[in-house]
C-alpha cells in the first residue's frame, strides 16, 4: 500500500491489529478477492464434482464405485500410497537427520537434489523410469532376462509415485531439525541413552507434528499423482490404472457419473486429509507453533 511500514512484517501471531495499516475498504477488497477466487476456482469445482457424481442418484453412484475396474483402481491407489508413504517417511527422516545434524561434503548438493522432484515435470519423472527400466532402456535386458517386470506394473507405479513425493517429508523436517539443533540429543547421550533410544524418546517426539504434516501431504500427492503414473502405467484396465487414471478413462468413455464418482472419492480423501490437518492444528496449535519452525 501507500505506506509500507516495517511493522507489518512482524510474525502474524503477534498482536495483529497493531500491524494493520490498510484502510477498511482496502481490507474488504482484499478479503473479497480472496473469497471470490477461492469460491470460483476451488469450491465451485468441488461442488460440481459431487453434483455430477450424484446426477443420476445414489444408486448409480454406489454402482459406479462398486464396478470391478473402479474397485481395482481404488485398491491399487491405496496400495501405492501404503508402500510409498512409509518409504518416504524412512527416507525423509534419514535425509533430514543427515542434513540437519551432520556436517559433510556434498550437503548442499543433497539438499538441492531433494528438491528436484518439485522442479521437474511429472511427465519427465515417468519417462526417466521408462528410459531406465523399459525394454529398450538401460536395465531392460537384464530385467527381462531375470523375469522382473517393473514398467507397466505395480513396481513402476510405486517408483514413479515415490519419485514425485520424495521431498514432502524431508522438506517438512529439515528446517525443524535444523532449528532444534543437537542440544537435546547431546543431553540424552550424556545421560547414557544409546542412539536408538535417543531417536525414539528425544528426536521423534520433537519432530512428530512436522512429520505427521509431511505424511499427510505426501499421502495426498501419492493418491492424486497423474502425470508420472500415467507414463509408466500401461493403462491396463483393472490392473494398472490408479484412481486418477481411471477417472480420465471413464470420462473419455462418456461415463460422467462413473468418472465423477471416482473423482469425488479422491476429493473426499483430500478433504479428510484437510480436516485431519485442521484438527491437528486446532488441538495442538500451541505445540505445533512451538515445534514447527515456520
Amino acid at each position, binding site marked *: 500500500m501507500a505506506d509500507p511500514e516495517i511493522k507489518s512484517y512482524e510474525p502474524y501471531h503477534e498482536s495483529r491489529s497493531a500491524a494493520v495499516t490498510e484502510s477498511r475498504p482496502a481490507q474488504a477488497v482484499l478479503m473479497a478477492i480472496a473469497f471470490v477466487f477461492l469460491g470460483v476456482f476451488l469450491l465451485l469445482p468441488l461442488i460440481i464434482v459431487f453434483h455430477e457424481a450424484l446426477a443420476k442418484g445414489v444408486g448409480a453412484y454406489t454402482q459406479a464405485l462398486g464396478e470391478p475396474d473402479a474397485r481395482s483402481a481404488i*485398491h491399487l491407489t491405496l*496400495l501405492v500410497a*501404503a508402500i510409498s508413504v512409509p518409504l518416504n517417511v524412512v527416507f525423509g527422516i534419514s535425509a533430514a537427520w543427515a542434513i540437519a545434524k551432520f556436517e559433510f561434503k556434498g550437503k548442499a548438493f543433497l539438499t538441492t537434489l531433494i528438491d528436484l522432484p518439485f522442479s521437474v515435470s511429472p511427465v519427465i519423472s515417468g519417462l526417466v523410469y521408462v528410459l531406465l527400466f523399459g525394454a529398450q532402456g538401460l536395465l531392460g535386458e537384464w530385467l527381462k532376462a531375470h523375469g522382473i517386470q517393473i*514398467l*507397466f506394473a505395480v513396481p513402476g507405479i510405486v517408483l514413479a509415485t515415490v519419485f514425485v513425493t520424495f521431498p514432502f517429508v524431508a522438506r517438512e523436517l529439515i528446517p525443524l531439525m535444523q532449528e532444534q539443533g543437537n542440544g537435546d540429543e547431546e543431553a540424552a547421550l550424556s545421560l547414557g541413552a544409546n542412539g536408538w533410544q535417543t531417536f525414539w524418546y528425544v528426536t521423534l517426539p520433537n519432530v512428530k507434528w512436522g512429520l505427521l504434516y509431511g505424511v499427510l501431504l505426501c499421502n495426498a500427492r501419492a493418491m492424486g499423482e497423474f502425470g508420472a503414473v500415467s507414463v509408466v502405467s*500401461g*493403462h491396463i484396465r483393472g490392473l494398472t490404472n490408479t484412481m486418477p487414471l481411471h477417472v480420465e*478413462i471413464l470420462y473419455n468413455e462418456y461415463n460422467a457419473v462413473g468418472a465423477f464418482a471416482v473423482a469425488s472419492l479422491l476429493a473426499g480423501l483430500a478433504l479428510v486429509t484437510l480436516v485431519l490437518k485442521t484438527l491437528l492444528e486446532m488441538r495442538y496449535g500451541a505445540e505445533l507453533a512451538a515445534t514447527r519452525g515456520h
Partner: protein
Amino acid sequence: MTKPHFRKLLGALVATSVQFGTLGFAFADTTILNVSYDPTRELYKAYDEAFAAHWKAETGETVTIQQSHGGSGAQARAVIDGLDADVVTLALEGDINAIVSKSKKINPDWRKKFENNSAPYTSTIIFLVRKGNPKGIHDWSDLVKDGTQVITPNPKTSGGARWNYLAAWAYANAHDGGDEAKTREFVGKLYANAPVLDTGARGSTVTFAQKGIGDVLIGWENDAYLALDEFGADNFEIVYPPTSILAEPPVAIVDANVDAKGTRKVAEAYLGWLYSKEGQTIIAKNHYRPAKPELVAPADLPKTPDIKLISIDDPLFGGWKKAQPYHFGDGGIFDQIYKPAQ
C-alpha cells in the same frame, strides 16, 4: 498427546501398510492383454465378453482379456518399451511396423497371418458437425475456410489422426490435379484451423462433443456414431464427404510375448475369431465395416452411404512403409506444414 500415543499411531500406519503389501491379485486361468487404440473400447468390451464365453464353451478354459487403450502411436511405443501385450489391435499398419522394427517382438510377415491383410474390419474418416450444420460443411474444402475451427488429433501420437490427414491429402491431391505444393498448402491451412491437437482420437471427440470446442470434428466413422448414441442425435449431425480414406486397422500377435508367456494358442484364437460370424456381427454392430459382410445378417450391417474411399496402397501414398516416414517422420511433411497456434 503423549509419546506412547504417537507411537501407537505410527504402529497403526506400519500395520496397514504391511496389510496392503500382502494383498495379492487373483488371476484367472489364462490372461491375455490386448493393447488397442482409442475408439475400440466399446467394440472390444463386447467382443472380449463374447470370446471368453466362446472359449469356455469350446475348450472349458477360462480366459480373461485385459484391455489397454490409448493413442495408437503411444500404445505401440508402450509395447516397444515393454508393455506385455499378447495381441495388438492398432489403428494402422505403420504402428505395428514400428514394433517390428524397433523391438523385433512381432514377426515381419505379420500381415499374412490373418485374412484381409490382418485387417478384420475397416473404417473411414467422416465429419461430425453441430446440429443444423451451421457452418455448412459438406466437403474437405469447407474445412480450410477462415473462421472454421477443425478438431482433429495429433498425427504424431494418434493413428486416427494420420488417417484424417491422409484423407485430406487425398482430397486435395485430386482437387489440385496432383500439384504437391498446392496439396501441402491445403493441408497446412486445415491444420492452421485446428485450435488444439489431442493425443488420441477419443480425446478429440471429447473436446468436440463434451467440451463444445470447434465447428467440425474429423474422426472415425464408428466414433461419430458413438457420439450420436451418447449425446443424442439432437446435438450433432454426421456429414459424409464425397471422398475419404479406406482405413484398415490391423491386428497382430506379439510373437515374443506370447511365446514367453505360453499364450500363443489362445491369442491366435482370439484374433482369428474376429473373422467368424459372431465376431463380424459384433464389429458391424459397433459401427465398423466388417471385412466379411456376407457373414453378417443384413439388418446388422451399418447403413453407410457409398462414398469414394482411397486406399493407403494407392500409388498416391504407396503403402504405409512409404507414407509413414514421408508424411509423419521427424522432419516429414507434417512437421514442415504444422505450426502450433500462437
